[in-house]
């Protein structure tokens, strides 16, 4: 059973690489590989250390502040990252105003404000609970 799953997995991987290689005119294997490895490098060497740094800095705070703040920062950062290409809106085109039609900086500010407000409320509540409990 295990070896069957290994074989299927290995076959899928091989098929994927074969596809990339066989459509080289469309997939540009060299730059594809660069993006593949590059995204890991950016995550492991830049994004993750930044998160560790944020963890260390917020670690200086009292627990009742620290936990909600970390959660709020994480949600804010991840939401921003997940929608960043839209927010930056470099894909806009003159001939087609229906592409990226909204005011994204405004949208992001609203989303971040809601996250910040929620974080604040939760941290006040958790402080109160910590005091009374």
């Amino acid at each position, binding site marked *: 059973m295990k070896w069957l799953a290994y074989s299927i997995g290995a076959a899928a991987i*091989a098929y994927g690489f074969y596809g990339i290689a066989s459509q080289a005119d469309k997939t540009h294997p060299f730059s594809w590989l660069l993006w*593949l490895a590059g995204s890991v490098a950016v995550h492991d060497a830049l994004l993750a250390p930044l998160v560790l740094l944020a963890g260390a800095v917020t670690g200086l705070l009292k627990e009742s502040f620290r936990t909600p703040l970390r959660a709020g920062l994480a*949600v804010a950062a991840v*939401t921003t990252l997940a929608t960043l290409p*839209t927010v930056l809106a470099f894909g806009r*085109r003159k*001939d087609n105003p229906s592409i990226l039609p909204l005011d994204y900086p405004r*949208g992001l500010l609203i989303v971040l404000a809601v996250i910040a407000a929620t974080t604040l409320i939760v941290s006040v509540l958790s402080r109160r609970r910590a005091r009374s409990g």
Partner: protein
Amino acid sequence: MALDLSSRFTSKLHSERVAAQLGVWLGISFTIAFVTGLFSHFMQHPPGWLLWPSRPVNLYRFTQGLHVIGGVATIPLLLAKLWTVYPKLWQWPPFRSMGHAAERGLVALLVAGSLFQVVTGVTNIAYWYVWPFAFTNAHYWTAYILIGALLIHVVNEWAKVKRHALPTRVKLPSEPPADARSRRRFLATVATASGIAALVTVGETYKPLSRLALLAPRSPDKGPQGLPVNRSAAAAGIEVHADYRLTVTGAVGRQLSFTYDDLLNLPQHTVRLPIACVEGWSYDAEWTGVRLKDLMRTAGADRDATLSVESLQKYGAYSVSEVRPPHWHDPLTLLAVKVNGETLHPDHGYPVRLIAPNRPGVMQTKWVTKVTVS
């Protein structure tokens, strides 16, 4: 063991249990993305024997919305999972054996494939083409690599999943209450981030939530005639001349040729159908025009004929689309001349566009000038 940095990570959230629980969610998300992605691919490139049904009308709209919005919502899961297991990156010695080296290589491939898919995916839906490769080809082939690496990873980690993340999990020494609380809080935070990412984008395909779609690349009521488009008439190089004709040709009993006014004088039908884009956005509209089925009957086309619908467009990859029997037999399939009661805007395909149920937007050919029967 000064070299073993992995022991310097003190948070209890870098645990096997958190990794296993996030892993289950992530495994489900990736499987959904893979299946819906294949569905979209084979709808656009069906092998000869494959006849997709034309119903349910909103099937493709649903699966592609799930693919794209689900993909966006997967990003918090993926980042949380990578954070949880990050200390393992620094384990020492890096490779204990050949088997361990192979396993780590596979994990590297899995991580790379996952990041590649979400990065290219969210960048593509924002129409930001920062790489030289064709998105569809690269995203499609990488999906096989990712799903293969995921399958092997799941097999390797199955014991941990069983221990921590299945309802049937074996009895573990009970977790200190503070740890359990912090683990649950962490998972709830991840779920919140996923929920927000979905909530601020899903309105581009689900209209009741369109006011919340603050960070969606599309808005279902912004565009010419209040409807979004992917390729404008200008971008496609469209010129409609006075001698415009719609012709029906190929394996037919008799060839047909219509002027625009001829088409307006044929029996008109109005249907409510969605445009469902591969990029995940969609909208409903009322389309009015001639039933493709009626035209084929007039032309005397064979019942199992395949139609090729050709556009006036000079630029772009989607100037021709194939319509197989289940779709052209469907009474909802029209060559439309109006949308929501108005003559089609050039960007929506004036003079005539194809509109059919359960079909990707790129195959709803605009600026139609020729139907070839074969």
